[in-house]
């Protein structure tokens, strides 16, 4: 059942559950930050409206900088602003930032320890009709490999606002991942959010598998868990909203009873959440894991729903993975 302590949206499983894009959470988060902290500044590389940076830009025009189509310039300008005491947020589609400007981020932000918040939008295959060139499916992996950058992936628009605001809690560079399309609202304003802490959204007695999901696919994981319950397969579903630093103890605790894991992400099964959890388990508690995500291929144009079905990231794929990993338990 849904964890009652988390004050989740009671309409999660309704066919008319509210939906909103997580990028709207970015826009609202920036607006609130802008009002509270005069050092917050925002940069855009010709995607102001698409990334919802326009809300901040309209209210605080003196603190908004449009750089045009130049993501490397955007990242390094942000670095210069950051070392001079500002808190810059840079936003673009994740294929371009941190994709195109990865080395600039590495040198001028990560290694330089510049307090820049990097917003990667249009993440995942769910970007849809634009096709693979615009669907960021390796961005978590390339950032995760860099020392000194935290990573947060919100599960819905409400959490996205909280994550955006939480990114300013420390002076660490942060990578925040946002998606394009409207996705189901699973949380409420009352749902607690803490950077670095997982939350178990679906609980049950005697679970035999733990599903770790990050981002909007958490909803597919919850659908899967509910259907599996009808087949007497009890699972836990955990929302991993911070991929770095990973809530290691939380993950290990979530597995103490189940001893089998499934990871779920709209990202390659290489280097993202799957990689992070596998690394942890290999070092601390080797257990069978199955990966749900993009299976080492590029996707294509389509609707998000079509794509997650074709590329096996939907609830049916999750159910299949759960059954597979349970069969591997020794």
């Amino acid at each position: 059942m849904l964890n009652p302590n988390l004050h989740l949206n009671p309409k999660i499983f309704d066919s008319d559950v509210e939906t909103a894009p997580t990028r709207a959470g970015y826009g609202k988060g920036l607006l609130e930050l802008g009002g509270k902290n005069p050092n917050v500044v925002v940069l855009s590389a010709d995607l102001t409206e698409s990334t919802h940076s326009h809300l901040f830009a309209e209210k605080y025009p003196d603190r908004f900088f449009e750089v045009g189509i130049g993501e490397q310039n955007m990242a390094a300008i942000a670095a210069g602003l950051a070392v001079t005491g500002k808190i810059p947020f840079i936003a673009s589609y994740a294929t371009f930032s941190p994709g195109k400007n990865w080395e600039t981020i590495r040198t001028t932000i990560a290694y330089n320890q510049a307090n820049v918040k990097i917003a990667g939008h249009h993440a995942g295959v769910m970007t849809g009709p634009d096709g693979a060139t615009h669907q960021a499916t390796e961005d978590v992996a390339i950032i995760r490999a860099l020392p000194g950058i935290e990573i947060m992936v919100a599960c819905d628009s409400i959490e996205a606002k909280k994550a955006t605001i939480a990114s300013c809690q420390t002076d660490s560079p942060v990578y925040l991942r946002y998606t394009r399309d409207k996705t189901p609202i699973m949380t409420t304003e009352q749902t607690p959010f803490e950077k670095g802490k997982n939350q178990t959204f679906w609980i049950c007695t005697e679970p035999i598998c733990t599903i770790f999901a990050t981002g909007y696919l958490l909803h597919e994981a919850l659908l899967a868990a509910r259907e599996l319950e009808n087949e007497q397969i009890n699972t836990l579903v955990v929302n991993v909203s911070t991929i770095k630093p990973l809530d290691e103890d939380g993950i290990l605790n979530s597995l103490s009873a189940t001893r089998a894991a499934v990871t779920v992400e709209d990202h390659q099964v290489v280097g993202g959440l799957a990689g992070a959890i596998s690394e942890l388990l290999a070092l601390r508690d080797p257990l069978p894991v199955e990966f749900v995500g993009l299976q080492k291929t590029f996707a294509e144009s389509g609707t998000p729903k079509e794509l997650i079905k074709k590329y096996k990231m939907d609830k049916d794929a999750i159910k299949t993975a759960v059954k597979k990993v349970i069969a591997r338990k020794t």
Partner: protein
Amino acid sequence: MDFDLTDQKIIELEEKAVKARELVIETLVEAGSGHSAGPLGMADIFTALYFHILNHDPKNPEWSDRDRLILSNGHICPIRYVSMAQAGYFPIEELKTLRKLNSRLQGHPHRTALPGLETTSGPLGEGISQGIGVALAAGLDKKKYHTYIIAGDGELEEGNIWESIMFGGKNKMDNITLIIDRNNIQIDGFTEIVMPLEPLKNKFEAFNWEAFEVDGNNIRAFVDTIREARAVHEKPTVIIAHTIPGKGVDFMENDFRWHGNPPDIADVPGAPPKGQQGKVALDELRTLQGKIEK
């Protein structure tokens, strides 16, 4: 902002620049790796900056009103470290630690390793953007410090530099001054053979910058050009400073093979045998006015 230079001051700066070149050679020989041509070529400009132009306080590298000096072509950091040491940012002795384990003097400048560096650089093409960010912050904070940015000429081949040049032109940024080390060399050879940059002045003008050209090894001319550039307020300014790579050491001057080599590491045609290059270089260092007594 007049940067007045008396004849006496010029002599002092030129002597300091010669000393800087000696320290560069000694430091590179000790390090066993690093870049020779750029640091030697830029010794006059760095001396002019650290000892005449910059509003700074070596004992207070975090002073919030200091002028900023951003080094985009980070590989020429040996001359920056030398000028900083001469100015009192850290002991001259510490120059011996360049590129060694646990050193604050990293092979390419690392902001958090050494106070006074302002940014981290090395991979080319990122310093102008960073300098622009620092200058934008000055605008937000209503501060009057000036941001000087040094970049290489080969470095201008990195496309994203032109993103920053467009941005500077768009925002009419008059609180930055870009200085290009126009020494005509890069690793694979002369710039005009590898990837021609000319007409270079026109390129900057096309991007709405005010462009100046000067002999970068002539301290008086360089300071005069800084004064002219600082007087321009309706556009960002760039000074294309023509320098002799390896300036001061006969066997290195104008030879691109000394871009990435320190003395004493390799046999280079036309140079003394490898074990003697450092010694010969030090013996030969001369002022712009003639040889100095050793």
